[in-house]
Structure formats: C-alpha cells, structure tokens
C-alpha cells in the first residue's frame, strides 16, 4: 500500500521511513515554517544503501543529526565512479536549497572531490576514509587495523576452544579462520593486516584464509568464498566487504559456524543473522558524519583538517553480537579489554599492510 499519504500530518517532515518504502526527496517537498538549521547533501559510496554496514552507517549518522539539530538532507547513490563528480557538483552548485555541507562517503570519491572542492571554495565538504587537502574539506580517517586486531584476537582466542552459541559452534582442532575482502584495495588490506595480527596475537599457529570477492556488492560470491573457508575447517570468518558480506553471514548460518561483521553492529542491522554474528568491528562512520554536521551547525567547520579515529576515540571498536555477546567467556572478554588498553597505550604495534 503505497502512494501519497495526504493529511496524515503526524509524520514529521524528515521521517523518510514509512510503510515499506523510502522517499528520497522528502526533505525537499516539505519546507517547514521554521526552516532547517542546515542542508546536507549525502553522496554515498558505490554499493548503495541497504548494505547494512558502511553506507547504512553513514545514513544513521545523518539521521541522528537530523533529529538532534533539525537539519535536512538529500542523498544520492552513485552507481558508477564517474557519477561521483556529477553528484558532488550538483549539490555544490545548487542554490535551492543551498547546501551547507556535502558529505562524501568512501575513499573512491577522493579524486573526484579533489577536483570538485577547489571549484567551489565556498562550499563545505567532508570525506570519509581518505584525505583531500583543501581548505573546504574536512577529512575523516579510521584506524581500521586497530578494530580489526581486536576482532582478530577474539577469533583467534575462540577458534582453538570449544565454543558454541546461537546457531554456531567452533571446531577446536582446526587452526584456521577466514577473512573475506571486498575489493583488493589498500584500505581493505588494512583490515586484513589488523585481523591477521590479532589472530597471531592469540596463537601464532592459526592460519588466516583470505580471499577477495572483487566487489562490495556480490553477496553470492561472498557466500561461495565463505562456504569454501568453512568447508576448509575455518570456524570464524571476518568480512570487510560491504554488501558482499551478507553472503558470509548466510554461509555461516548454513554451515553452523560464526562470522564477524564490519562497519556497523551487524548483529543489529542484520537481525536474521544475529545467531551467528559473534561480534562486529564497528567503524563509526555515523559519528564522523554526525560530528561534521554538528560542526557546521555550530559554525565550527574544521575544513582542511584530518580527523583520525581509532580505538582511543571510540571511532573503531569490537562490539559483541547482540545475541551471542553474553555467551562469550569472560576471560576472552578480559583479554580483549587488555589488548585494547595495550593498543591505546602503544604497546602493540599493528601493521597496516599485508606483506
């Protein structure tokens, strides 16, 4: 039952979720008397909304800002790299409304933004996952290797012991875990490197099977890869593959093994799989988005700076699964707390590239 819902004024102007559908330009169609505190243009990464990790996290950020500061936003989901500059530019040059901030989600927008930003010196931009050296761009980076180390350590500790929870269980005699990457890019290698280091921190003998799907949206491939890893004796697979990762959860569920989510707390964004998601390496893209909007609203836009968010800033973290977290043995959790402190203290060196 779609169509227009005239007269039902209880739906606030900025509520974009309604019965089964989303209206992408709701913000534009209803202008409230008071007017919003700011307009934000969101340009998402390839893979689009609905990945239940990266892009959806960014969307959560802007929604939080919306309810907190009364900003309004429009969004664009590019389907190819060539569309990045076009969307960035559309937001930047628009005068109706005049956007106060354009958020560029994902490293793939870097080169486009490096061209767009100098052309619109009056426009504020922010980018997540890479840096653009312009006065009107605020860059946000994450220490993914730190969070990945944590979930790697968790996986390493659990794979060698008898553990079963929800729909999954480990096979303590096989000493391997898996890593599924989206596209083989330096950023994703960073996840892999951190993960491998964390696993090794638990037990040097555990091997990590690693493979790349070549895409952030090929969940069928993700499922095949993860299945092959589980078949090979892995009992926990960590993915840094956006939408591709959904296939990893699927495989885990079918095989009765565990998976570790990424970017968002995926035991919550993917409740169907909360019985196999041990933990997630959250990367608080939402806080990057939220903070940047907050800065704009407060006239404190930090253009030209780079903000790096790690474990210490709570920009990345290993969060336990909503359903399985309580079953993870306390000593394992204690070990993770220790390693977290050690990383923050600089006692553990984590590589950012695989050799």
């Amino acid at each position: 039952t779609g169509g227009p819902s005239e007269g039902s004024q209880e739906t606030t102007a900025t509520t974009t979720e309604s019965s089964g559908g989303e209206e992408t330009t709701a913000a534009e169609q209803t202008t409230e008397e008071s007017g919003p505190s700011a307009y934000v243009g969101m340009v998402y990464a390839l893979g689009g909304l609905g990945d239940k990790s990266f892009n959806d996290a960014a969307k959560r950020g802007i929604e939080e800002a919306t309810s907190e500061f009364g900003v309004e936003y429009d969004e664009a989901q590019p389907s190819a790299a060539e569309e990045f500059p076009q969307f960035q530019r559309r937001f930047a040059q628009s005068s109706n409304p005049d956007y106060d901030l354009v958020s560029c989600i994902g490293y793939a927008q870097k080169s486009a933004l490096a061209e767009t930003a100098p052309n619109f010196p009056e426009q504020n931009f922010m980018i997540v996952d890479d840096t653009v050296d312009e006065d009107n761009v605020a860059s946000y980076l994450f220490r993914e290797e730190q969070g990945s180390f944590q979930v790697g350590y968790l996986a390493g500790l659990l794979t060698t012991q008898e553990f079963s929870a929800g729909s999954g269980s480990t096979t303590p005699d096989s000493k391997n875990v898996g890593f599924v990457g989206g596209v083989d890019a330096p950023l994703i290698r960073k996840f892999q490197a951190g993960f491998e280091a964390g696993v090794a921190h638990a037990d040097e003998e555990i091997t990590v099977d690693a493979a790349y799907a070549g895409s952030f949206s090929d969940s069928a491939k993700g499922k095949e890869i993860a299945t092959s890893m589980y078949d090979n004796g892995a009992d926990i697979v960590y993915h840094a593959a956006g939408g591709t990762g959904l296939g990893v959860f699927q495989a885990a569920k079918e095989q009765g093994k565990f998976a570790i989510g990424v970017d968002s707390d995926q035991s919550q964004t993917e409740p169907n799989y909360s019985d196999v998601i041990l933990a997630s390496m959250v990367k608080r893209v939402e806080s990057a988005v939220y903070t940047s909007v907050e800065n704009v609203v407060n006239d404190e836009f930090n253009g030209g700076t780079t903000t790096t968010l790690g474990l210490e800033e709570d920009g990345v973290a290993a969060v336990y699964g909503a359903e399985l977290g309580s079953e993870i043995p306390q000593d394992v959790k204690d070990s993770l707390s220790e390693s977290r402190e050690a990383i923050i203290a600089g006692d553990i060196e984590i590589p950012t590239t695989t050799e």
Partner: protein
Amino acid sequence: MSAAENAKAVLRRLTAASATERILISFAALIMAVLVGAVIILVSGRITTCQTAATTLFGTGFCYDPVEVYLVLFNGALGEPFLLNDPALFNPDWNPLNFGFALTLKETTLLIFTGLSVAVSFRAGLFNIGTQGQLVLGGLATALFSFFVAPLLPSGLVGGLILIPLAVVIGALVGGLYGAIPGALKAYADANEVITTIMLNFIAAQIAFVLVSEFFGNPDSQVVETTPIPDWATLLPVAFPQGGDFSILALAFGLALVVAVWFLLEQTSFGYDLRTSGEQPEAAEYGGVDAKRTTVTSMFLSGALGGMGGAIWVLMVMGKWQAGVPALGFDGITVSILAGNNPFGVVPAALLFGTLKSGSLAVQFGTGVPKQLVGVLRGLIILFVAMPEFFRMLGSTIDLEPDRETVATDGGRLGGDDE
C-alpha cells in the same frame, strides 16, 4: 509507362525508402517508449510512498508525475533553461554553456565514438559486442602512454598538441588490435564473434585491472587507477564550465569521424567490400573481396573507433584510467541500432541517449524517481525500434499504405522487400 505512372513509382519508392522509414520508425519508437515509461512511472508512484501527490489522475493520487519527470529530464539535460514552476518560464540565469548541458554533450561525444565503432562492425556483418573491451584497453593504453611520455615533452600547449593526437592514435591502435583478435578468430578459426567478443570483454576488464593494480597504479590512491595525466595533456573544456568534462574539440573530432566513416563506407572501394561482406559474404567473395582480410580489417577499424572512445574518455573525462569503466561500449550497441547502423544516424541517436543519461540525474534530484528509469526507457526504445512491423500495422489501420498498382506477372516488384 506514362508520366503519371512514373511519378507514382517514384513516390512509392520514396515512401518505401528505408532512410525516411527508419527515421519515422525511430520517432514512433521513441514516443511509444515514452508512453510506456509514463505508465511505469505512474505505477511506481503508487508503490512508493510520499506526503503529497505529485499528480492526480482519475481521482487517484500518484507520487510521481510522468509529465514532470520528462520535463525535468529534458530541462536538466539542457541545464535548466526553463523554470518549470514559475510563470516566467524562462530562466534568466540560463547560460547555454552550463554544467548540465556539458554533461549531455560529454555523453553524446563518447557515444558517437562507440556508436560508430559498433556501426562499422554491424555493417560488415559482424556482431561486435566487444567495443567495451576495446574501449577499456584503448583507454588504458592512452592513459599509460600519456603518463610516461608527458615528462619528456615541454608542458603546455605545444606539448598538448603533440601528445594528445599521439595518445589518441595509441588508444586507437590498441583498441584496433584487440578488436582484430575476434576478427582473426572469426576469419581463420570460424569462431563465433558474439561469443569471443563477450569473452574478450571480461578478459579486457580483468587484464586492465591487474595491470593497473599490480604495476601502474597510482600509489597515492586507494582506488585502482593510474596516476593522473598532467592537465596540459588532457582535453580541457574550452568554453564549458570546468568539471563538466566536456571538450568541444572532442565533439568536433567525433563529428569529423562520422563524416569520415560515412565516406569510407559509402564512397570507397573498401567500404563497398566491407558492406558487401556484411550483407552477403558469399557474394562478396564472388566479387573478389578477400572475406577473411575484410573481417579482420573491419574488426580492427571497429576496435580502433572503440579504442578512440576510450582515449577520449581518459583524456576528456577522467584525466587518468580508473577501474569501473562505464558501459559506453554496450551503450554504443543501442546507439548504433537506433541509428540503423548509419554513421549520420549515430549523431542524433547519441544525442538522445546522452540527453537521457545526463537528464537522469536531474530526474533523481528533482522528482525522486530513481534514475534507473532511464535504463528502462533505453530498453523500451530498442524494443520498439526492433519491431517496425508493429508500426506498419498501426500505420495500415489508419491507411498509410501506398496503394499498389497491378503489374503484369513478370513485372517484378518495386520498392524492396516489405519485411
């Protein structure tokens, strides 16, 4: 035959003339596609949800208004010359050299190259699905060549004048050679070019990816891309706004190529050979055409045009090669089909699809209708273009059929087959 009969015959031949008919059918196809598209817009306007109805028909509210969608599409592609919700109608700030229009012309320019590439092979009877792969590798060659040679040349206009033409030639050469592979496989191993070109598209994408990610990548980038070419060695926008990625020079070059390809096909012996082997390979061989060589040459030519498309994409749009090359080669197939494989037809066909593509972003922004709508429209246009019979039937019910005179039984027929 009396004079009157003669005149009648000429008229009849004119109405049956394939060029006129083609244009009529293309227009009719466009209109039909727009109508069906409108229905789809209305239906999806009932599925989605919104606060206020965009339009109301038969007492039912719809979230999307098809008329508005098409107006916004067209308006957006031209860079908003009209103020749709304003009685003033014309936008006083409108400048023809604007971003939206640049986007349209950028797409048009690229599609001219790939459309020509496909048209040449189709005219030679070769179903070249491989323009995409030829474009990918041609573009990569251009990007690498420019990057490595640029430091050896004086920067600035002089360097650009030397480097850009050379880079385009390199792109053409690589695209041509890659196109010649399925040509040779067809000629000498009798391998179906539809299969081989599909396979070679996959292979080209992967090889280019590996080359760039393993050897020639930009070390400063997370993305699989080459290091950017210096600005002086790219096709910079002359009058159009920076960032619209459109260079009038590239369009002029494309149009010149249209004339050149037309001349080659229609006016030269080689073109005759090519068309003959396309229409009827047996007859071509009979007429002294070396079918194998013509197959390889035509595929080379087609690949070279595709490669040039890649070169222009690199030099005009990206300034580097980047993984995830847009599907310009596949779009070239639709352009060529709409153009009836005629080089001159490629220009309006490319303009149409260019308009659709650039307008699609405006549609998404202005109306909330997902931009994938344009993909549907494109398919519908091709579908209707494929069935001229449908329009003939429509036409004959409103009696557009020329009345035929009765001739003696051995008088043959006029006006070509009516298939």
